[in-house]
């Protein structure tokens, strides 16, 4: 295998895939990236056995072939080379040499045949979307995914369609985020859970322009973004019935300036208990009072003018959950629907919108 290219031609693809090259991998070959040179194209593949990323680029292939080399070392070398310098990669016995200007590096290799790759995912569902639309679905919900929860099916994001709408849902059991969009073309119904790591990698790769092709198989999801192909295993589990925990018509409705409410909560949060982050919301007609205190008995109180016509009530929340929802929801104004101090609240744009946030209270 031998190929010649500019530094920039391989730097981008290497940076795109390096996120899944684990630093403390269980198999030595997972520290490597797979290089496949063929027909004027170089494809670079990285995997952690859960998420696989393939980035391709046009290069001058002088001799086709495939091999794996240490991924981070190759990236660090290419990154440190001068701009625009010509780079030659050549396999020499069981070593790979990297030449650029007056620099020369020799890297160890492992055989390409040992590198685990996902070939065919047997797609049962194919959807074409704008990158910005997919990005929105992920950005509006990802923060509610659980992390290392024993309920492993919460450590990811539900991606589902009923054929008409495409929807993402994430929940850690204390709060839930949902975002949906209408599909241009009808598809079959499907419901899968994309693992957390896959969601975060995908978010890193998606831009704001261009199209993406999403394919869902029984065990994998694959997303093609131009020269980059993302494949992730799916979580084999049953996502909770999220529909029954979204309050349909909460009896008490508070409408507030989203930014004013968010800033007030941010300030109050400074003096909330660092571990449990509890704040208390006290509602009176057209006035919301937020209070927080910490074990040092320091205290914060914020008053926020709101539109509220119901009776007085008090409810406690983890302030981080409220802030996450307020940061994600669209619009200058926000509507918070409440039932009582033991029931979930619904945060959304006034009158609806296609993103919903549900937060369970804290008993304070």
């Amino acid at each position, binding site marked *: 295998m031998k190929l010649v290219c500019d530094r920039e031609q391989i730097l981008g693809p290497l940076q795109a895939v390096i996120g899944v090259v684990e630093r403390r991998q269980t198999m030595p070959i997972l520290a490597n990236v797979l290089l496949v040179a063929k027909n004027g194209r170089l494809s670079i593949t990285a995997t952690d056995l859960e998420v696989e990323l393939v980035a391709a680029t046009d290069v001058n292939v002088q001799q086709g072939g495939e091999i794996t080399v240490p991924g981070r070392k190759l990236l660090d070398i290419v990154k440190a080379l001068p701009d625009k310098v010509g780079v030659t990669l050549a396999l020499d016995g069981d070593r790979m040499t990297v030449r650029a200007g007056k620099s020369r590096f020799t890297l160890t290799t492992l055989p390409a045949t040992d590198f685990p790759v996902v070939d065919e995912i047997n797609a049962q569902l194919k959807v074409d979307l704008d990158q910005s639309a997919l990005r929105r679905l992920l950005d509006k919900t990802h923060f509610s995914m659980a992390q290392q929860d*024993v309920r492993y099916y919460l450590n990811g994001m539900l991606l589902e369609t009923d054929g008409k709408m495409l929807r993402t849902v994430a929940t850690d059991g204390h709060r*839930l985020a949902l975002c949906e969009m209408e599909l241009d073309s009808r598809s079959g119904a499907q419901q899968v859970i994309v693992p957390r790591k896959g969601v975060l990698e995908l978010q890193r790769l998606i831009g704001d322009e261009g199209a993406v092709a999403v394919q869902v198989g029984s065990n994998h999801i694959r997303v093609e973004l131009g020269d980059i192909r993302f494949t992730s295993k799916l979580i084999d589990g049953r996502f909770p019935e999220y529909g029954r*925990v979204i309050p349909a018509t909460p009896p008490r409705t508070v409408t507030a300036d989203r930014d004013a409410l968010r800033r007030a909560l941010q300030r109050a949060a400074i003096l909330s208990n660092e*571990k449990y982050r509890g704040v208390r919301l006290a509602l009176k007609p057209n006035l919301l009072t937020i209070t927080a*205190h910490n074990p040092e008995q320091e205290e914060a109180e914020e008053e926020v003018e709101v539109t509220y016509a119901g009776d007085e009530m008090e409810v406690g929340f983890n302030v981080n959950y409220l802030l996450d929802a307020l940061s994600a929801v669209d619009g200058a104004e926000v509507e918070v629907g409440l039932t009582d101090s033991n029931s979930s609240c619904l945060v959304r744009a006034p009158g609806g919108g296609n993103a919903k946030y549900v937060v369970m209270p804290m008993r304070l």
Partner: protein
Amino acid sequence: MSAPRAILHVDMDAFYASVEMHDRPELRGLPVIVGGTSGRGVVAAASYEVRRYGVHSAMPVREALARCPHAVCVKPRMERYKEVSQSVFEVFHEFTPLVEGLSLDEAYLDVTGSRRLHGEPAVIAAAIKARIRERTGLTASVGAAHNKLLAKIASDLKKPDGLCTIAPDEVARVLDPLPIRRLHGIGPKTATRLEECGLHTLGQLRAAPDAVLWPLFGKHTQNVRDRAAGIDERPVEADWQEKQVSAEETFDVDLKRAADMHAELAKLADRVGVRLRAKELTASTVVVKIRRRDFATYTRSRSFAPATQDTGAVLKIARELLDGWLAEQPRAAVRLLGVGLASLAPAVQLDLFGQPAGDAPTPRSEATAAPAGLPPAAGRAGAKLDPTLDRIREKFGDASVTRASSLGRGGPKEDGFTGVRRRS
């Protein structure tokens, strides 16, 4: 039966006396009695030097001085002991949240779940002893075993400054030769009667036939035999699992006016509120206890939702309960009032799917031995007033600030302890 637990019993050595000897080096090595200095009180604590003369706590000071005439009597300083106790309990909580305090100087710790982080029970016990000594300069005796009963016996075996472990296969060997009086719950009377039957050791007690034990213990016979065999399934009830937080006050002069009762009730509500918040608990039941001059005692309780930490909310309900009772007994003279808070729960994040975090809502995941952490005990008290009062009292003492409603009609007592005074 469940997997073996790891329980520690930590007992500070001659706690009050040791604190005094630590604070006042000139007392070290002397026979010290902490207790009433007037000669009419009882011994609250005795140093090891004075115990040699047969002096023990709860003995009248006069008798103690008869046995050891050169003993030094020291007036108890409860505030100081509480302070040291707090440091000691802080050490406990660095090793496990499951701490069941028995008194200022004694606690059970369930360290079953701490072993992975902190090592074997004996290692944890040694670390606790070292840390207590480092922070307070005092020594503790620790017993380690797989239940409370054995841990308590173990801590007593090598006092002072002891560390004793009873392994499951050593139980009979250690317990059998011990005198029956070592078993908690066997008082002097029962012990004497058992000894009359020829039962002197726990081994003999354990093997005694029903014919001997049944007349003495009745239906508790099997329980006594179990305990003599070192069997004890009682869980360590962490302090936040307390059933009730309460305060009561017996009055010098019986109260007849509702206004005075309300004032006392406000003080009591304040006291329990402070303790509730200090423990980061919420309550959803208020209990009011009323004792009449003739010692007839009544309790009235009410549960409510949501749970609260707020003194104001507690007081409101307590008043209504008291008023309800007063309506039945308008002419009563009251010698004691008490306010209790029950249905206690840690402040907690509620779960969307109806189960606490760590439980699986579908049968697919059985991994419920979850690193779910502790229930979050946190958040803020009801009114902003409460934490402010807590803080002031922490700094300046319990009597530094008082609710106006606690003052009664007679105004504040000018006793030099009440921070609020009338201007003349």
